[in-house]
Protein backbone atom coordinates (compact mmCIF):
# COMPACT_ATOMS: atom_id res chain seq x y z
CA UNK A 1 0.00 0.00 0.00
CA UNK A 2 1.78 3.16 -1.20
CA UNK A 3 2.12 6.26 0.96
CA UNK A 4 -0.08 8.22 -1.49
CA UNK A 5 -2.98 5.83 -0.82
CA UNK A 6 -2.52 6.18 2.93
CA UNK A 7 -2.40 9.97 2.57
CA UNK A 8 -5.52 9.95 0.37
CA UNK A 9 -7.47 7.90 2.92
CA UNK A 10 -6.20 10.13 5.72
CA UNK A 11 -7.27 13.32 3.91
CA UNK A 12 -10.70 11.91 3.02
CA UNK A 13 -11.21 10.71 6.59
CA UNK A 14 -10.19 14.03 8.11
CA UNK A 15 -12.50 15.74 5.62
CA UNK A 16 -15.47 13.66 6.81
CA UNK A 17 -14.56 14.51 10.40
CA UNK A 18 -14.10 18.23 9.74
CA UNK A 19 -17.22 18.89 7.66
CA UNK A 20 -19.58 18.37 10.60
CA UNK A 21 -17.97 20.92 12.96
CA UNK A 22 -17.56 23.40 10.07
CA UNK A 23 -21.24 23.21 9.17
CA UNK A 24 -22.23 23.32 12.81
CA UNK A 25 -25.77 24.51 13.31
CA UNK A 26 -26.21 25.39 9.64
CA UNK A 27 -27.36 22.06 8.24
CA UNK A 28 -29.11 18.95 9.40
CA UNK A 29 -28.39 15.73 7.57
CA UNK A 30 -31.64 14.24 6.29
CA UNK A 31 -32.38 11.21 8.45
CA UNK A 32 -32.82 9.08 5.33
CA UNK A 33 -29.35 10.06 4.04
CA UNK A 34 -27.79 9.31 7.38
CA UNK A 35 -29.38 5.88 7.36
CA UNK A 36 -28.06 5.31 3.85
CA UNK A 37 -24.48 6.09 5.05
CA UNK A 38 -24.95 3.77 8.01
CA UNK A 39 -26.35 0.96 5.88
CA UNK A 40 -23.58 1.35 3.28
CA UNK A 41 -21.01 0.96 6.07
CA UNK A 42 -22.80 -2.12 7.42
CA UNK A 43 -23.02 -3.69 3.97
CA UNK A 44 -19.29 -3.14 3.44
CA UNK A 45 -18.36 -4.53 6.85
CA UNK A 46 -20.46 -7.68 6.39
CA UNK A 47 -19.22 -8.19 2.82
CA UNK A 48 -15.63 -7.74 3.98
CA UNK A 49 -16.18 -10.14 6.86
CA UNK A 50 -17.68 -12.71 4.48
CA UNK A 51 -14.98 -12.43 1.81
CA UNK A 52 -12.07 -12.36 4.24
CA UNK A 53 -13.51 -15.30 6.20
CA UNK A 54 -14.30 -17.46 3.18
CA UNK A 55 -11.76 -16.59 0.52
CA UNK A 56 -8.02 -16.20 0.14
CA UNK A 57 -6.92 -14.74 -3.17
CA UNK A 58 -9.37 -16.08 -5.77
CA UNK A 59 -9.95 -19.41 -4.02
CA UNK A 60 -11.49 -20.66 -0.82
CA UNK A 61 -9.79 -20.12 2.52
CA UNK A 62 -9.25 -23.03 4.90
CA UNK A 63 -11.75 -24.41 7.43
CA UNK A 64 -9.77 -23.24 10.44
CA UNK A 65 -10.20 -19.55 9.67
CA UNK A 66 -13.89 -19.97 8.82
CA UNK A 67 -14.53 -21.84 12.09
CA UNK A 68 -12.71 -19.17 14.10
CA UNK A 69 -14.76 -16.40 12.48
CA UNK A 70 -18.03 -18.30 12.98
CA UNK A 71 -17.31 -18.75 16.69
CA UNK A 72 -16.47 -15.05 16.91
CA UNK A 73 -19.70 -14.20 15.10
CA UNK A 74 -21.79 -16.24 17.55
CA UNK A 75 -20.02 -14.57 20.48
CA UNK A 76 -20.51 -11.10 18.97
CA UNK A 77 -24.20 -11.81 18.36
CA UNK A 78 -24.49 -12.75 22.04
CA UNK A 79 -22.90 -9.42 22.96
CA UNK A 80 -19.66 -10.88 24.28
CA UNK A 81 -17.04 -8.21 25.03
CA UNK A 82 -14.93 -7.15 22.08
CA UNK A 83 -11.62 -8.60 23.37
CA UNK A 84 -13.28 -11.98 23.90
CA UNK A 85 -14.59 -12.00 20.33
CA UNK A 86 -11.19 -11.19 18.83
CA UNK A 87 -9.24 -13.62 21.02
CA UNK A 88 -11.78 -16.40 20.35
CA UNK A 89 -11.37 -15.99 16.59
CA UNK A 90 -7.59 -16.27 16.80
CA UNK A 91 -7.72 -19.00 19.48
CA UNK A 92 -10.14 -21.34 17.68
CA UNK A 93 -8.26 -20.93 14.38
CA UNK A 94 -4.90 -21.55 16.06
CA UNK A 95 -6.16 -24.65 17.91
CA UNK A 96 -7.66 -26.15 14.75
CA UNK A 97 -4.38 -25.57 12.91
CA UNK A 98 -2.52 -27.16 15.80
CA UNK A 99 -4.81 -30.16 15.34
CA UNK A 100 -3.80 -30.33 11.69
CA UNK A 101 -6.87 -28.72 10.11
CA UNK A 102 -5.85 -26.01 7.69
Amino acid at each position, binding site marked *: *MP*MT*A*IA*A*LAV*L*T*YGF*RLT*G*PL*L*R*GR*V*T*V*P*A*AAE*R*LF*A*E*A*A*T*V*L*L*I*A*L*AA*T*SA*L*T*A*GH*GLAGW*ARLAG*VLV*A*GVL*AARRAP*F*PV*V*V*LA*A*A*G*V*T*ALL*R*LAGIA
Partner: protein
Amino acid sequence: MRSLWRTASPALLRDVGLVCLADAIVGVSFGAASVAGGLPWWVPVALSVLVFAGGSQIAAVGVVLAGGSPLAAVLAGAVLNTRLFPYGLAVADVVSDPESTGHAAGTANGRMSGVRGRREGQPAARWLRGLRRLAGTHLITDESVAFALRQPDPARRRSAFWACGVPLFVIWNVSVLLGVALGSAVRDTSAFGLDATFPAVMLALALPTLTSRSTRMAAGTGAVIAVALTPVLPAGLPLLAALGGLGTRWDGWRRLADRRGRSGRRSRCGPAGNGGAAADQRPADRNNQVNEVPAGGGR
Protein backbone atom coordinates in the same frame (compact mmCIF):
# COMPACT_ATOMS: atom_id res chain seq x y z
CA MET B 1 -6.07 19.21 30.44
CA ARG B 2 -5.92 18.69 34.20
CA SER B 3 -9.41 20.08 34.71
CA LEU B 4 -10.55 17.48 32.24
CA TRP B 5 -9.53 14.59 34.48
CA ARG B 6 -11.16 16.20 37.49
CA THR B 7 -14.51 16.56 35.73
CA ALA B 8 -14.49 13.01 34.35
CA SER B 9 -16.22 10.63 36.75
CA PRO B 10 -14.52 7.41 37.93
CA ALA B 11 -17.24 5.37 36.26
CA LEU B 12 -16.55 7.11 32.96
CA LEU B 13 -12.80 6.56 33.28
CA ARG B 14 -13.39 2.87 34.02
CA ASP B 15 -15.56 2.50 30.90
CA VAL B 16 -12.96 4.35 28.85
CA GLY B 17 -10.33 1.95 30.22
CA LEU B 18 -12.34 -1.07 29.09
CA VAL B 19 -12.82 0.37 25.61
CA CYS B 20 -9.10 1.16 25.41
CA LEU B 21 -8.29 -2.44 26.40
CA ALA B 22 -10.57 -3.80 23.68
CA ASP B 23 -9.10 -1.48 21.08
CA ALA B 24 -5.56 -2.35 22.20
CA ILE B 25 -6.19 -6.01 21.41
CA VAL B 26 -7.59 -5.09 18.01
CA GLY B 27 -4.62 -2.76 17.46
CA VAL B 28 -2.09 -5.47 18.28
CA SER B 29 -3.79 -7.93 15.94
CA PHE B 30 -4.06 -5.26 13.22
CA GLY B 31 -0.36 -4.45 13.42
CA ALA B 32 0.71 -8.08 13.61
CA ALA B 33 -1.58 -9.30 10.81
CA SER B 34 -0.58 -6.43 8.49
CA VAL B 35 3.12 -7.21 8.84
CA ALA B 36 2.52 -10.95 8.73
CA GLY B 37 0.62 -10.44 5.47
CA GLY B 38 3.75 -8.92 3.93
CA LEU B 39 3.21 -5.16 4.30
CA PRO B 40 6.12 -2.97 5.41
CA TRP B 41 5.97 -1.95 9.10
CA TRP B 42 5.21 1.69 8.40
CA VAL B 43 1.93 1.00 6.58
CA PRO B 44 -0.13 0.03 9.67
CA VAL B 45 1.72 2.63 11.74
CA ALA B 46 1.06 5.49 9.31
CA LEU B 47 -2.57 4.43 8.89
CA SER B 48 -3.07 4.40 12.66
CA VAL B 49 -1.60 7.84 13.22
CA LEU B 50 -3.06 9.57 10.14
CA VAL B 51 -6.40 7.83 9.61
CA PHE B 52 -7.12 6.76 13.21
CA ALA B 53 -10.29 4.83 12.38
CA GLY B 54 -9.89 1.14 13.14
CA GLY B 55 -12.56 -0.33 10.88
CA SER B 56 -11.41 1.53 7.79
CA GLN B 57 -7.73 0.76 8.49
CA ILE B 58 -8.51 -2.94 8.74
CA ALA B 59 -10.69 -2.77 5.63
CA ALA B 60 -8.03 -0.97 3.59
CA VAL B 61 -5.27 -3.36 4.65
CA GLY B 62 -7.62 -6.31 4.11
CA VAL B 63 -8.26 -5.23 0.52
CA VAL B 64 -4.54 -4.77 -0.17
CA LEU B 65 -3.59 -8.10 1.44
CA ALA B 66 -6.19 -9.82 -0.73
CA GLY B 67 -4.39 -8.39 -3.75
CA GLY B 68 -6.69 -5.43 -4.37
CA SER B 69 -5.55 -2.13 -5.83
CA PRO B 70 -4.69 0.81 -3.55
CA LEU B 71 -7.61 2.72 -5.09
CA ALA B 72 -10.08 0.02 -4.03
CA ALA B 73 -8.53 0.04 -0.57
CA VAL B 74 -8.94 3.81 -0.26
CA LEU B 75 -12.54 3.66 -1.52
CA ALA B 76 -13.49 0.90 0.91
CA GLY B 77 -11.90 2.74 3.81
CA ALA B 78 -13.49 6.05 2.82
CA VAL B 79 -17.01 4.60 2.52
CA LEU B 80 -16.70 3.18 6.03
CA ASN B 81 -15.64 6.60 7.30
CA THR B 82 -18.55 8.57 5.83
CA ARG B 83 -20.27 7.99 9.19
CA LEU B 84 -17.76 10.41 10.73
CA PHE B 85 -19.61 13.24 9.00
CA PRO B 86 -22.88 12.90 10.98
CA TYR B 87 -20.73 12.20 14.07
CA GLY B 88 -19.00 15.54 13.51
CA LEU B 89 -22.35 17.31 13.36
CA ALA B 90 -23.45 15.63 16.59
CA VAL B 91 -20.35 16.64 18.57
CA ALA B 92 -19.56 19.95 16.86
CA ASP B 93 -19.90 21.85 20.14
CA VAL B 94 -17.56 19.44 21.87
CA VAL B 95 -14.46 19.08 19.72
CA SER B 96 -13.26 22.64 20.07
CA ASP B 97 -11.86 23.15 23.52
CA PRO B 98 -11.24 20.75 26.40
CA GLU B 99 -10.58 23.45 29.00
CA SER B 100 -13.79 25.41 28.84
CA THR B 101 -15.53 22.67 30.85
CA GLY B 102 -15.74 24.89 33.92
CA HIS B 103 -17.36 27.94 32.31
CA ALA B 104 -19.65 26.31 29.85
CA ALA B 105 -21.81 24.53 32.42
CA GLY B 106 -25.36 25.77 32.44
CA THR B 107 -24.88 28.33 29.67
CA ALA B 108 -26.19 28.15 26.16
CA ASN B 109 -23.13 26.81 24.50
CA GLY B 110 -23.28 28.56 21.15
CA ARG B 111 -23.51 32.00 22.77
CA MET B 112 -20.74 31.21 25.23
CA SER B 113 -18.14 30.43 22.60
CA GLY B 114 -19.02 33.63 20.78
CA VAL B 115 -18.28 35.73 23.87
CA ARG B 116 -15.07 33.87 24.54
CA GLY B 117 -13.93 34.40 20.97
CA ARG B 118 -14.21 38.17 21.33
CA ARG B 119 -12.46 38.33 24.69
CA GLU B 120 -9.44 36.17 23.94
CA GLY B 121 -8.34 37.96 20.85
CA GLN B 122 -4.58 37.51 21.27
CA PRO B 123 -3.00 35.65 18.33
CA ALA B 124 -1.29 33.06 20.57
CA ALA B 125 -4.50 32.10 22.32
CA ARG B 126 -6.32 31.93 19.02
CA TRP B 127 -3.60 29.71 17.57
CA LEU B 128 -3.83 27.38 20.51
CA ARG B 129 -7.60 27.18 20.19
CA GLY B 130 -7.29 26.47 16.49
CA LEU B 131 -4.79 23.69 17.12
CA ARG B 132 -7.04 22.17 19.76
CA ARG B 133 -9.95 22.22 17.38
CA LEU B 134 -7.89 20.49 14.69
CA ALA B 135 -6.74 17.87 17.20
CA GLY B 136 -10.25 17.42 18.56
CA THR B 137 -11.55 16.86 15.04
CA HIS B 138 -9.04 14.06 14.55
CA LEU B 139 -10.29 12.39 17.75
CA ILE B 140 -13.84 11.92 16.40
CA THR B 141 -14.34 8.14 16.55
CA ASP B 142 -17.21 5.74 17.29
CA GLU B 143 -16.02 5.48 20.86
CA SER B 144 -15.38 9.15 21.72
CA VAL B 145 -18.69 10.21 20.15
CA ALA B 146 -20.60 7.47 21.95
CA PHE B 147 -19.13 8.51 25.30
CA ALA B 148 -19.81 12.18 24.62
CA LEU B 149 -23.43 11.74 23.55
CA ARG B 150 -24.22 9.66 26.63
CA GLN B 151 -23.62 12.71 28.86
CA PRO B 152 -26.48 14.97 29.91
CA ASP B 153 -24.94 18.45 29.53
CA PRO B 154 -22.40 20.24 27.28
CA ALA B 155 -19.66 20.46 29.93
CA ARG B 156 -19.73 16.74 30.65
CA ARG B 157 -20.08 15.92 26.95
CA ARG B 158 -16.89 17.84 26.27
CA SER B 159 -14.92 16.27 29.08
CA ALA B 160 -16.11 12.75 28.17
CA PHE B 161 -15.15 13.32 24.53
CA TRP B 162 -11.58 14.33 25.40
CA ALA B 163 -11.20 11.85 28.26
CA CYS B 164 -11.97 9.06 25.78
CA GLY B 165 -10.33 10.47 22.64
CA VAL B 166 -6.85 11.29 23.97
CA PRO B 167 -6.08 7.97 25.73
CA LEU B 168 -7.63 6.07 22.84
CA PHE B 169 -5.33 7.75 20.33
CA VAL B 170 -2.25 7.01 22.43
CA ILE B 171 -3.18 3.41 23.22
CA TRP B 172 -4.32 2.61 19.68
CA ASN B 173 -1.00 3.73 18.19
CA VAL B 174 1.15 2.10 20.88
CA SER B 175 -0.71 -1.20 20.47
CA VAL B 176 -0.34 -1.13 16.68
CA LEU B 177 3.42 -0.59 17.13
CA LEU B 178 3.47 -3.50 19.57
CA GLY B 179 1.59 -5.63 17.04
CA VAL B 180 4.06 -4.69 14.30
CA ALA B 181 6.93 -5.78 16.56
CA LEU B 182 5.16 -9.03 17.41
CA GLY B 183 4.25 -9.74 13.79
CA SER B 184 7.84 -9.21 12.70
CA ALA B 185 9.26 -11.36 15.50
CA VAL B 186 6.99 -14.36 15.06
CA ARG B 187 7.82 -16.39 12.00
CA ASP B 188 4.70 -18.45 11.42
CA THR B 189 1.85 -16.08 12.29
CA SER B 190 -0.79 -18.27 10.69
CA ALA B 191 -0.25 -20.72 13.57
CA PHE B 192 -1.66 -18.03 15.88
CA GLY B 193 -4.80 -17.60 13.80
CA LEU B 194 -4.23 -13.88 13.29
CA ASP B 195 -5.86 -14.03 9.85
CA ALA B 196 -9.18 -14.81 11.57
CA THR B 197 -9.09 -11.61 13.62
CA PHE B 198 -9.82 -9.23 10.70
CA PRO B 199 -13.14 -10.80 9.71
CA ALA B 200 -13.99 -11.25 13.40
CA VAL B 201 -13.52 -7.53 14.08
CA MET B 202 -15.66 -6.67 11.04
CA LEU B 203 -18.44 -8.96 12.30
CA ALA B 204 -18.26 -7.57 15.82
CA LEU B 205 -18.56 -4.03 14.43
CA ALA B 206 -21.39 -4.83 12.02
CA LEU B 207 -23.65 -7.26 13.91
CA PRO B 208 -25.05 -4.70 16.38
CA THR B 209 -26.07 -2.48 13.44
CA LEU B 210 -28.13 -5.22 11.77
CA THR B 211 -31.23 -4.04 13.58
CA SER B 212 -33.70 -3.53 10.75
CA ARG B 213 -34.91 -6.01 8.18
CA SER B 214 -33.85 -3.76 5.32
CA THR B 215 -30.29 -3.53 6.66
CA ARG B 216 -30.05 -7.31 7.10
CA MET B 217 -31.41 -7.78 3.58
CA ALA B 218 -28.92 -5.30 2.08
CA ALA B 219 -25.98 -6.74 4.02
CA GLY B 220 -26.87 -10.36 3.21
CA THR B 221 -27.27 -9.58 -0.49
CA GLY B 222 -24.03 -7.61 -0.48
CA ALA B 223 -22.11 -10.47 1.16
CA VAL B 224 -23.42 -12.99 -1.39
CA ILE B 225 -22.51 -10.65 -4.27
CA ALA B 226 -18.99 -10.10 -2.90
CA VAL B 227 -18.23 -13.78 -2.24
CA ALA B 228 -19.70 -14.88 -5.58
CA LEU B 229 -17.64 -12.34 -7.52
CA THR B 230 -14.34 -12.96 -5.67
CA PRO B 231 -13.17 -15.80 -7.97
CA VAL B 232 -13.79 -13.79 -11.14
CA LEU B 233 -13.11 -10.10 -10.40
CA PRO B 234 -9.79 -8.45 -9.43
CA ALA B 235 -9.49 -8.22 -5.63
CA GLY B 236 -11.18 -5.21 -4.07
CA LEU B 237 -13.88 -4.87 -6.73
CA PRO B 238 -16.17 -7.57 -5.27
CA LEU B 239 -16.27 -5.56 -2.06
CA LEU B 240 -17.39 -2.42 -3.86
CA ALA B 241 -19.89 -4.48 -5.87
CA ALA B 242 -21.36 -5.52 -2.51
CA LEU B 243 -22.74 -2.00 -2.22
CA GLY B 244 -25.21 -3.22 -4.86
CA GLY B 245 -26.90 -4.92 -1.90
CA LEU B 246 -28.21 -1.45 -1.06
CA GLY B 247 -30.44 -1.80 -4.11
CA THR B 248 -32.73 -3.97 -1.98
CA ARG B 249 -33.79 -1.04 0.18
CA TRP B 250 -36.45 0.43 -2.13
CA ASP B 251 -38.19 2.14 0.77
CA GLY B 252 -34.98 3.83 1.84
CA TRP B 253 -34.29 5.22 -1.62
CA ARG B 254 -37.84 6.52 -1.97
CA ARG B 255 -37.59 8.17 1.42
CA LEU B 256 -34.27 9.76 0.51
CA ALA B 257 -35.67 11.23 -2.71
CA ASP B 258 -38.76 12.39 -0.86
CA ARG B 259 -36.70 14.03 1.88
CA ARG B 260 -34.56 15.84 -0.65
CA GLY B 261 -37.58 17.35 -2.32
CA ARG B 262 -38.70 18.85 0.97
CA SER B 263 -35.29 19.85 2.34
CA GLY B 264 -35.46 23.45 1.10
CA ARG B 265 -38.52 24.15 3.15
CA ARG B 266 -37.07 22.46 6.19
CA SER B 267 -33.68 24.16 6.36
CA ARG B 268 -35.37 27.53 6.68
CA CYS B 269 -37.12 26.57 9.89
CA GLY B 270 -33.85 25.40 11.49
CA PRO B 271 -32.68 27.45 14.47
CA ALA B 272 -30.00 29.84 13.21
CA GLY B 273 -26.86 30.54 15.22
CA ASN B 274 -27.85 28.33 18.11
CA GLY B 275 -25.41 25.50 17.75
CA GLY B 276 -25.48 24.19 21.31
CA ALA B 277 -29.22 23.99 21.54
CA ALA B 278 -29.45 22.46 18.09
CA ALA B 279 -27.02 19.74 19.16
CA ASP B 280 -29.09 19.07 22.27
CA GLN B 281 -32.26 18.64 20.33
CA ARG B 282 -30.83 16.76 17.45
CA PRO B 283 -31.19 13.15 18.68
CA ALA B 284 -34.87 13.65 19.51
CA ASP B 285 -35.43 15.63 16.34
CA ARG B 286 -33.81 12.91 14.31
CA ASN B 287 -36.11 10.27 15.74
CA ASN B 288 -39.09 12.41 14.93
CA GLN B 289 -37.92 12.67 11.37
CA VAL B 290 -37.45 8.94 11.07
CA ASN B 291 -40.93 8.34 12.41
CA GLU B 292 -42.45 11.14 10.46
CA VAL B 293 -41.00 10.45 7.03
CA PRO B 294 -42.96 7.28 6.16
CA ALA B 295 -46.18 9.02 7.16
CA GLY B 296 -45.25 11.98 5.01
CA GLY B 297 -44.64 9.80 1.97
CA GLY B 298 -47.94 10.78 0.38
CA ARG B 299 -47.54 14.50 0.87
